[in-house]
């Protein structure tokens, strides 16, 4: 049988701690060659409406020990908006019912069969959060008690969960430009994490006394500048633009998710993205990521984590990899099935007697 799960089901079975553990194992296995990862590819063309583009994105990975392989797909309509002086890249929920389109297909490497198909939203944010959590485990002060979250969207929730899973956080502060959004986030995360999460009215207010700072925005302009950097603090970003190049260069210990993970981007002739003008898709030329340690180096001990309480550290968790969906998707499949969730479709619909 091929199982169909929805986001609510996956959210109910995926705990951040488990996602962090499965990814830790996954990265160590990948470093040992027990898996493979194909970099993200994005093909971009005109969409139906002026000022938007259509992007078909895919990434995949395979993990030998667990016998899972996965491909993650996004079929996005993308537009750009100015909010409070900064340009945002926005996926537009244009599919019927105002919905987004992202899918994970999970396969067995033992017999090739499609095990499950599910929307990518929950797994997507859990794997980004869990990856930042692994960075934070090695780079934040052990006694970190105050966290700042910049951004209040879907991804920001997983950053909050990961921080709370890795450190004894007592205070969490959130800032995002939209008052209603940040207040809703504060309410939801207070209930979810059992920590008081407070909405603040500026980046500076959110950063007050913070031991760890997580950026989780859709901004194409920096939200953390050079003047924001304080001793002993751990900073993380999920997009190249979030922390200004001067700020990154001022940090003592800099770590990146992957040193070399440029996506393969193919476009129709003449398609233009706002990122082209801002230079925000590619990491800044002023920041040399090639010289930084990467996450796997921290996990294998090849690179040292935080060396003193006064160091400033950062983890740049830019573009993800398909392999994360293999690891977290495999976990989600097992947990959801153990909980008796999902709808089954005949595997024959997705397999064939004809030789492909």
């Amino acid at each position: 049988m091929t199982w169909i799960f929805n986001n609510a089901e996956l959210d109910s079975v995926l705990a951040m701690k488990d996602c962090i553990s499965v990814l830790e194992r996954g990265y160590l296995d990948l470093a040992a060659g027990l898996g493979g990862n194909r970099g993200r590819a994005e093909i971009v063309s005109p969409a139906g409406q002026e000022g938007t583009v259509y992007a078909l994105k895919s990434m995949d990975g395979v993990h030998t020990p667990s016998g899972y392989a996965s491909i993650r797909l996004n079929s996005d309509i993308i537009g750009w908006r100015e909010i409070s002086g900064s340009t945002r890249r926005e996926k537009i929920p244009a599919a019927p019912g105002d919905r987004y389109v992202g899918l994970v297909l999970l396969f067995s490497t033992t017999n090739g069969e499609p095990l499950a198909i599910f929307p990518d939203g929950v797994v997507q944010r859990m794997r980004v959060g869990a990856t930042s959590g692994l960075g934070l485990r090695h780079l934040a002060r052990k006694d970190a008690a105050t966290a700042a979250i910049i951004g209040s969207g879907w991804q920001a929730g997983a950053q909050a969960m990961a921080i709370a899973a890795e450190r004894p956080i007592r205070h969490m502060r959130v800032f995002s430009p939209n008052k209603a959004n940040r207040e809703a986030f504060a309410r939801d995360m207070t209930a979810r994490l059992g920590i008081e999460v407070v909405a603040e009215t500026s980046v500076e207010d959110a950063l007050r006394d913070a031991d760890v700072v997580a950026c989780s925005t859709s901004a194409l302009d920096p939200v953390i500048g050079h003047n924001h950097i304080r001793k002993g603090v751990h900073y993380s970003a999920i997009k190249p633009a979030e922390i200004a190049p001067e700020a990154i260069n001022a940090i003592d210990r800099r770590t990146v998710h992957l040193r070399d993970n440029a996506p393969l981007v193919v476009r129709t002739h003449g398609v233009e993205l706002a990122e082209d003008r801002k230079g925000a898709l590619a990491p800044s030329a002023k920041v040399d990521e090639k010289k930084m340690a990467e996450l796997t180096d921290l996990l294998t001990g090849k690179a040292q984590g935080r060396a003193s309480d006064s160091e400033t550290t950062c983890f740049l968790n830019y573009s993800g990899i398909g392999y994360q969906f293999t690891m977290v998707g495999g976990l989600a499949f097992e947990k959801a099935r153990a909980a008796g969730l999902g709808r089954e479709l005949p595997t024959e619909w997705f397999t064939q007697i004809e030789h492909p």
Partner: protein
Amino acid sequence: MTLILSNDDVEKLLTMPDCVEALETAYKDLAFGRGITRQRSDCIAPTSYSDEAIYGLKSMDGVVPALGVGAIRINSDIVTNPRIGNTQRRVKVPAAPGNRYVGLVLLFSTANGEPLAIFPDGVLQHIRVGATNGLGVKYMSRKDSKIVGLLGSGWQAETQVTAAAAVRDIKEVRVFSPTKENREAFACRMTETTGIDVRAVDHPEDAVRGADIAMCGSNSIDPIFFKDWMEPGMHVSSIKKPEIEPAAILAADRVAVHTHDTSPIIVVAEGAPFQEEAKDKGWNAAKKLDFSKYPTIADLIVGRAKGRENDEEITCFLNNLGLGFQFAAAGSVIYKRAVERGVGHDLPTDWFTETVHP
């Protein structure tokens, strides 16, 4: 609604001439950068199926904005490399429950992103490979071509015949493959379904000698067509990079390729007995040739390069690597007809979409 179609549905909805036409039109967009395709990628790992086999997760995608369709084609394969006859083969094992293969096409709308259809790739896969070689025949073979010499009698071989017949008045096909029963069964079956005189022969030379068109349609990762077999006026084609020996390609007066990508993006996990990157085999075949100097089939279609100038030239078309773009172009025809004719299972699109921002 998201449509689930079967291979039977696809077979009824898309004929070979339809597919040749759909690709010919779409390749014009590709030539001018109005359509796009992403290089195929293969993620290879060991499989607990057996020590000799590998697991491969393959994908390729493309968008035809004029048709409002994007497609991704995915294969989840168990692959072995046995020796059959004189050459080493790439053989997929139907290991999924019920002894089945796993290959899928997902079609999306570029207007709103929604998943339009999901269907197995098996039938379309063969039609689009055939149709592509059919375009090679249309633009590169002599107009009066009547005889096809065919090397291979498997799934891909059938559509080589129907594709050639879709663009030329083919009267006779001579087929060779290493297993006698296979080539004879093929000849019998194809004579019946196409009405063309398809004959099995005992040696590859007997198939291609005197043929106007020599087509390779095999699963070999070693060469099966050689320079000595070339004759003036002949059109030679392959569906895989290794099939035609490099010396033969160099001896041709005119060569065109499907794409300038010379191999997929290949990622191999530790311990996978992957044979296709061995020296001179599979993707490493014809490594000395500079594919970038050859025109693509899209260049021939829009007239940037000529496929043939006179009846004496030997021409060669290398269908070297498949494109996700083909699945978008032909998939669009399949989808439109399926909707018109009410074919397939409808699944709620909500199963494949979401309210949370991915």
